[in-house]
């Protein structure tokens, strides 16, 4: 299935991209993160254990167990700092 990935702020800079279309078999956020970490480099560092980041699925905050479906928009970003 295909996911529309979006990245923001420090993670966008670190990954060198703000969005990508990702072909994956991951069925949950946790599985997706395992797959992204396997890319190594900044992907492994930024999404590593002990790092703080947020995941949103279709613009709603998601947890590790959140299910993923074909066509979902999945965003990964640092904790927010607005206001």
């Amino acid at each position: 299935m295909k996911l529309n990935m979006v990245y923001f702020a420090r993670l966008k800079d670190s990954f060198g991209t703000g969005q990508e279309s990702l072909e994956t078999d991951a069925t949950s956020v946790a599985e997706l993160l395992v797959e992204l970490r396997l890319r190594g480099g900044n992907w492994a560092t930024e999404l590593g254990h002990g790092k703080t980041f947020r995941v949103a699925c279709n613009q709603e905050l998601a947890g590790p167990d959140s299910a993923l479906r074909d066509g979902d928009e999945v965003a990964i970003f640092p904790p927010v700092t607005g206001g």
Partner: protein
Amino acid sequence: MQPFTVRVQTGRFDTGAEIDRLSCNPACGAVVSFSGLVRDYGDRQDVAALELEHYPGMTEKALHAIIEQAGQRWQLQAATIIHRVGYLALGEPIVLVVTACSHRKDAFAAAEFLMDFLKTAAPFWKKEILQNGSAHWVEAKHSDQAAIGRWQ
């Protein structure tokens, strides 16, 4: 009048006009506003400007959700949240929250609630640009996370 307004924009907003807009309901005896401005220090000293990024779509949803939560706790007759993004120089307004209620206690509390949750739940990110031209992303603050604890 649309009682609940959320706007994300690059341009300046007119604070007085926004307060006036919520000050014309005879049922509302109290209108409270909060303005957030670009300050000259944050994570570092000598901040010259901020660059703000957001997640279009999710931001608006998150802000409307925060207003809805406030509406469940207080008699919130009307509320406005305006947040700017892009390049903002020192002293520029960043955010405006206006609440209109029958009584001042609700208006004060709701405005503080909206700001506390905006800071931890709305997908905005600040980058500090220093006088020397260097820039870095602002780190999330534990104090902001702690601030929402008192509303639980």
